[in-house]
């Protein structure tokens, strides 16, 4: 039987050095146009596990689990782990896993509402954090 994902992550944390991603994901919620741009930051332990391979579950299992009610058995904890991924693929994995599909899949408008950017492009001065928008 496949080891539970949580146990695989424990093993990965004990064996692998965390990896800081070079990328961030900037996105806006089309259902909340007055809110500032949000910034997704990949977790260093997640990145290390994904780059090494043999720990993370396939993204398709998370997408199917979105429709499974709480308390019902989920697919992703016991799914066969995927092999090594490159950093760009892991960022796309996180977009699908951690950002609402209404942003990365369903949006039909003309604004750019999602962008993968190098970490250097995120302002270090947060004085006007609530005014951040994605440049069009």
């Amino acid at each position: 039987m496949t080891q539970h994902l949580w146990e695989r992550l424990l093993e990965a944390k004990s064996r692998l050095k965390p990896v800081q991603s070079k990328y961030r994901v900037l996105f806006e919620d089309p259902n909340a146009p007055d809110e500032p741009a949000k910034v997704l930051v990949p977790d260093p332990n997640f990145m290390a596990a994904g780059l090494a391979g043999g720990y993370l579950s396939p993204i398709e299992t998370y997408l199917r689990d979105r429709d499974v009610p709480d308390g019902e058995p989920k697919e992703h904890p016991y799914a066969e782990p995927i092999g090594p991924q490159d950093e760009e693929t892991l960022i796309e994995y996180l977009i699908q896993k951690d950002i609402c599909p209404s942003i990365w899949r369903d949006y039909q408008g003309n604004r750019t509402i999602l962008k993968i950017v190098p970490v250097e492009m995120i302002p270090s001065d947060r004085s006007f954090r609530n005014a951040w928008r994605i440049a069009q």
Partner: protein
Amino acid sequence: MSNLVVSNISDGTTSVGTEYVVNGSAKVWCALNDNNVLAQSFNISSITDVTAGIVDYAYSSSMAGAINAITVGANDNNYGNRACFVKGNTTASATRTVFIEGNATTVEDDWVNITVHGDLA
């Protein structure tokens, strides 16, 4: 990986069932600073900097349900009269924290720490 299969752990005098140890472990933890650096984390896939003072935490391995024992702490090196809360958007796979000042406006902080206890999916 090798497995050690035991039903009890003992210090020679008292013993406890291993299911208490496993089930009682924190399932998620994260220490995040104001530069969005995850200094310590486990079972987090990403965090999202939502606005000033609001952060979302996505879990790699989901909890069984949305109701869990979530402990949140925060510290700011310069200011008092502030508090950190878990916001209502918590699900089985993510939670949100909000950091506010006394007048209820959200503000930036130096560190936010969360720990989640409960049952895994």
